[in-house]
């Protein structure tokens, strides 16, 4: 095999990564810009970060976003896991194909339509729009993602483990709690993380269902960008990028370490 690092490889790698990361790098650099003009470099400064943390409206929006993301991802993980379990485990029942199709439909549904439909629903039942309606809407559109992640794990799950639990005296609920759930936990957690990030950066649906009392961070960013890009937004985006980066790296390190440990243990077992 030719393992030489050829010019062709180097070029395509540079182009690819530049395509992916250049916009973000520029954003990060300009968040440390002294000047108020976004595109003119005038020296290093952290003043936009200081200003950001003084801005009540931004902090408020961040708090709303966090609340919405935590509550909606938790609820949608609960519902999505239940849906996945029933669809994978309950066997053939009347209309199973229809139900599984309907669960996954929001995956491909344009967000504009979901948002509009939610808005119409909330208006027709007279629900006051605010944090609560954003949470409801986010549960609706993130649930299917959780369901997809969890059901793909359940599909490869050895069903005889559950049967063994029943055989050893578990009630069906106990079997789920003490055998199934611990084993599918990684999938449930990654489903939660997926729902959390989806909720965190949703703009379209929130735009429809949020009332005047609740503004999420993406909404706030979008509306302030319309008045002109301020370096404050750059600072905020840099913070979000670093949070996501740290999170992703930590998660991969943890899983890598646990795989390495498991491998070492397996080798120890073979030697005995």
């Amino acid at each position: 095999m030719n393992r030489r690092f050829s010019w062709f490889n180097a070029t395509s790698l540079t182009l690819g990564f530049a395509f992916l990361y250049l916009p973000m790098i520029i954003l990060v650099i300009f968040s440390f810009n002294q000047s108020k003009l976004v595109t003119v470099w005038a020296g290093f400064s952290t003043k936009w970060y200081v200003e950001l943390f003084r801005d009540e409206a931004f902090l408020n929006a961040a708090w709303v976003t966090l609340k919405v993301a935590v509550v909606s991802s938790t609820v949608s993980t609960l519902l999505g896991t239940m849906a996945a379990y029933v669809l994978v485990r309950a066997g053939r029942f009347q209309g199973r194909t229809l139900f599984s199709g309907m669960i996954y439909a929001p995956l491909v549904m344009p967000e504009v339509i979901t948002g509009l439909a939610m808005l119409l629903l909330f208006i027709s039942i007279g629900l006051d729009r605010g944090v609560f309606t954003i949470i409801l809407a986010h549960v609706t559109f993130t649930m299917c993602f959780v369901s997809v992640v969890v059901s793909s794990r359940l599909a490869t799950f050895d069903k005889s483990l559950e049967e063994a639990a029943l055989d050893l005296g578990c009630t069906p609920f106990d079997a789920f709690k003490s055998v199934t759930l611990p084993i599918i936990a990684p999938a449930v957690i990654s489903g939660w993380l997926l729902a959390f990030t989806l909720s965190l950066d949703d703009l379209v649906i929130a735009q429809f269902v949020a009332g005047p009392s609740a503004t999420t961070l993406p909404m706030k960013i979008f509306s302030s960008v319309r008045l002109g890009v301020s370096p404050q937004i750059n600072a905020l985006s840099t913070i979000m990028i670093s949070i996501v980066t740290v999170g992703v790296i930590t998660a991969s390190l943890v899983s890598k370490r646990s795989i390495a440990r498991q491998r070492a243990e397996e080798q120890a077992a073979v030697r005995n």
Partner: protein
Amino acid sequence: MAQPANRPVFAPWTDPNEKPLIRFQNVTKRFGEFTAIDNITIDIYRREFFALLGPSGCGKTTLMRMLAGFETPTEGTILLDGQDIAPIPPNKRATNMMFQSYALFPHLTVWDNIAFGLRRSDMPKDQIPARVEEMLKLVRLEKFARRKPHQISGGQRQRVALARSLAKAPKLLLLDEPLGALDKKLRQDTQFELMDIQEKTGTTFVIVTHDQEEAMTVASRVAVMDHGRMIQVDTPDRIYETPNSVYVADFIGDVNIIAGTATPKGDDKVSIVWAEGQAPIAATAPGALTPGTPVHFAIRPEKVAIATQKPEDRANVIEGTVEDIAYLGNISTYKVALPGGQMIKAQVANDRRIARRNITWEDKVWLSFTDTAGVVLLN
């Protein structure tokens, strides 16, 4: 299981006063159009080691899953200790199952796997550790109690699965292809271990297997199944020596099957005309046969003798040519072609060194067997 002559023979199925532990009464199981179990009636007794043997798809696993409670019969009843078990869910049954995949809980240690069922039983909490230790000792895994299932070998996993299913002291233990994942040598050792554990604990074992050697080794009785029916239920030696059909004779071990027409000769003797230019086979068949009944004559290769000189004192003598020799170390199987083109296998124990043996390929040989060596099968 072979029993020494000085001990009473274990055969509760011959005792009319013995109450069966399990009774299948006209049990049928259908999955949609497919009939998995077709009207089975059978009794299994306490302390039996009962083997369900058959090719895949014959219904043996379905039968076992009905005992465990994962399937319910479409028709008929299953009684465990005189009680209909159809309405009892699996977690309330006095049966435990050892799964083909072992189904060990990967997130729990060996210890916690074995304690899993005990913690959900009415056993007092302070007695559980002693019981787990006892089980670990039974399967010789004391040193591995703190390991997780992925940290032990396949054979050890198999023993954990056995310990876990025995921990609650079930009335009935179900074993679904328990040794299928082990290699041949380990499988043979484990078969004897299983028999030993079965005898020590006095539990009734029902084992599902497609390996006829395994069934013959471990079982007190073997049920040969095909297409959801029980073809023959009997002790291993009777299944082998007196199969009731061509299917059973062919499924268990190696056999020569010769088709012909039988004519009774009195005293249970029959003569079977089977090929032109060959003398009829003299054989024994209990019961009256009408002359000209089409039959199959089945004879095991080890009951056919092979010689270079024509034997004088045997009831049946056939001439042929050695076509092939399969040398297996302890035995050799000679495939002998008869003038009519038929093949008959003869098996000889290699009690002499290979250089001393005088039969080789293309040799003219004489095959012979007595008139009681084979069985006459009507179906």
